[in-house]
């Protein structure tokens, strides 16, 4: 027996036998429940009852119907169809009369009247029940969406990595029915950084859970294995064992060495990243199967070097595969072309989202999650090469406490002819002093045999002082934070920690460059500036 409309089955199961109307009303009714009888939707009995005009005597009925047999076996003698607005919504099933007499014409009339009144009431009750079930279902779905969103947000980075000389930007826009997009930045040894963009097939809580698992495995394996292809191979093997049926994960994993611009990457079936370069837009192609489908997959590993001014765009398919009302796709060529037009990553993300909005039209619900991550190598350092840079001085000081005064005096002497106004010169001197102190103490560890190199150059627009120590292994400068003076005065923090803050507030621009052996801090003062409001 297959299924029957659920409302019909409910009636069959719950209706007690109707008792003869001649029974004394005061006597407690003896309720005997007929065993449920399943009626298949294609059983001819349904059509027969739908068209019946009143109570039907089961014994006399001639139909090739399994359900009819079932009713007879259950001891049903008379069936009164409950029909509301032409639709069969239930049956009143009656066994034999207790008097063992046949149902009379009066009984049948009474039952027919009863059915005529009961049917609309039962229908209303059914509708209310259906409505309540729908509300509960909607609430359950909404709750699931909230859970999915919560899981998703839990695993997205709270902040972007700060890399000296690089601009990192990211956008994550969940669809209402949250998809399985994710991205991540993973700190790796040697100041390298792992960059992840992925997309789990499916939506909602299952996708969010797979995303969380993938995220955790990546975080655990990336710092250990380093090579992107090995990381994806390992993640795939671990995921295959846990992946629910019909689900998989596409994932692009790249490792950036900020010092050199070297980017190694492997791709598990994710969208191909685009790179905006001086010579146009290029693609970072590498082959590999999505994660979680088959064990022992291998992933091609490729490498690119990002030059100053280059920007990489990693993107999920919520962007390129978005549709307009004419069902046309936003398309990968458009994403590539826009990548080539933007001046930097943040501008690129804004532009892509603006173009997408214009393409899909106003008020259109987003089809899928959209994730965009850009990694741009700043072009600023290339500028001095373009302009004629004139060296004003270059000298070394030994790494001994107090020698910053030597550096200050020599820089002041070197810039004497540039017309740096009094207060701005004082600012530069303070910045040079602090930067040299840092180089002596933190870069060279107060070891007198290690020199601090100081170079003063100008391109007639800017004055740049480069202070280099031998501490390339200490990486780029940390973020400059404003010291909390209240906490220091309350004795809750050390009174120290003013150096970087001072430097940043003294100069017009502060940059750092790091390589394997050297750490350079660049102090830039504009020469042809409007009078500085700060000076």
């Amino acid at each position, binding site marked *: 027996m297959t299924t029957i409309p659920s409302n019909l089955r409910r009636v069959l199961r719950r209706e007690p036998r109707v008792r003869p109307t001649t029974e004394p009303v005061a006597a407690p009714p003896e309720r005997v429940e007929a065993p449920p009888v399943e009626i298949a939707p294609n059983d001819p009995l349904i059509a027969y009852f739908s068209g019946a005009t009143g109570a039907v005597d089961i014994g006399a009925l001639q139909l090739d119907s399994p359900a009819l047999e079932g009713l007879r076996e259950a001891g049903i003698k008379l069936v009164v169809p409950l029909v509301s607005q032409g639709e069969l919504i239930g049956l009143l099933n009656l066994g034999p009369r207790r008097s063992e007499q046949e149902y009379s014409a009066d009984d049948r009339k009474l039952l027919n009247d009863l059915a005529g009144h009961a049917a609309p009431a039962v229908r209303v009750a059914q509708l209310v029940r259906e409505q309540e079930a729908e509300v509960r279902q909607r609430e359950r779905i909404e709750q699931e969406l909230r859970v999915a969103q919560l899981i998703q947000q839990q695993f997205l980075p709270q902040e972007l990595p700060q890399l000296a000389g690089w601009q990192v930007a990211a956008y994550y826009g969940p669809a209402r029915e949250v998809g399985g997009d994710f991205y991540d930045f993973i700190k790796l040894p040697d100041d390298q950084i792992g960059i992840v963009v992925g997309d789990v097939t499916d939506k909602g809580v299952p996708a969010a859970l797979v995303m969380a698992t993938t995220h955790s495995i990546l975080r655990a394996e990336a710092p250990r294995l380093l090579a992107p292809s090995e990381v994806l191979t390992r993640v795939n093997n671990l995921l295959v064992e846990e992946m629910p049926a019909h689900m998989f994960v596409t994932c692009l994993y790249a490792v950036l060495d900020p010092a050199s611009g070297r980017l190694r990457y492997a791709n598990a079936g994710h969208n191909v990243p685009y790179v905006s370069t001086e010579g146009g837009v290029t693609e970072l192609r590498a082959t590999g199967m999505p994660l979680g489908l088959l064990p022992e997959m291998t992933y091609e590993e490729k490498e690119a070097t990002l030059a100053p001014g280059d920007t990489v765009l990693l993107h999920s398919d919520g962007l390129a595969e978005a549709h307009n009302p004419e069902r046309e796709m936003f398309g990968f060529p458009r994403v590539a072309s826009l990548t080539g037009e933007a001046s930097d990553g943040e501008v690129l993300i804004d532009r892509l989202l603006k173009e997408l909005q214009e393409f899909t039209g106003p008020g259109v619900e987003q089809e899928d999650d959209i994730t965009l991550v850009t990694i741009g190598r700043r072009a600023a350092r290339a500028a001095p090469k373009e302009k004629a840079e004139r060296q004003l001085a270059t000298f070394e000081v030994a790494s*001994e*406490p*107090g*020698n*910053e*005064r*030597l550096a200050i005096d020599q820089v002041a002497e070197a810039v004497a002819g540039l017309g740096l106004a009094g*207060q701005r010169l*004082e*600012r530069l001197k*303070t910045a040079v*002093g*602090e930067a040299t*102190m840092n180089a002596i103490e933190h870069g060279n560890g107060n070891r007198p045999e290690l020199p601090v190199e100081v170079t003063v150059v100008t391109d007639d627009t800017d004055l740049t002082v480069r202070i280099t120590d031998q501490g390339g292994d200490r990486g780029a400068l940390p973020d400059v934070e404003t*010291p909390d*003076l209240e906490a*220091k*005065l*309350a*004795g809750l923090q*050390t*009174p*120290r*920690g*003013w*150096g970087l*803050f*001072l430097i940043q*507030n003294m100069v017009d621009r502060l940059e750092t460059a790091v390589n394997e052996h050297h750490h350079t801090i660049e102090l830039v003062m504009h020469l042809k500036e409007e009078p500085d409001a*700060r000076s």
Partner: protein
Amino acid sequence: MPGAEFRAEVREHASTGVIDLHGEINLGADQALLAAYDAAVRDDPRTVVLNFAQVEYINSTGIALIVGLLARARKEHRTVRAFGLNEHYRQIFAITRLSDFMGIYADEDSAVSATVST
């Protein structure tokens, strides 16, 4: 390179401890500055005034020493005022917000009497 060595002299002016600072305020000034402060508060004045007129150089370590001194004075419920700062160090005291916690005055009389604020 040894710079102008730091030294500090303490005197009293109208029941206020005045510390005349000389030379460079850097790491090397630590002990002398503390000793000067101890001397200045020996008679438990409510106010200590720092004279920066003869100071040639203050680096970030020097700023930290002044913050430490100010923290101690606040713990002892003393007021610290300053005068004699040149324009550059006035700016640095403003950027570091030291001037929010230490009145900066044009000269000694104003600082001691605290009637004229600049």
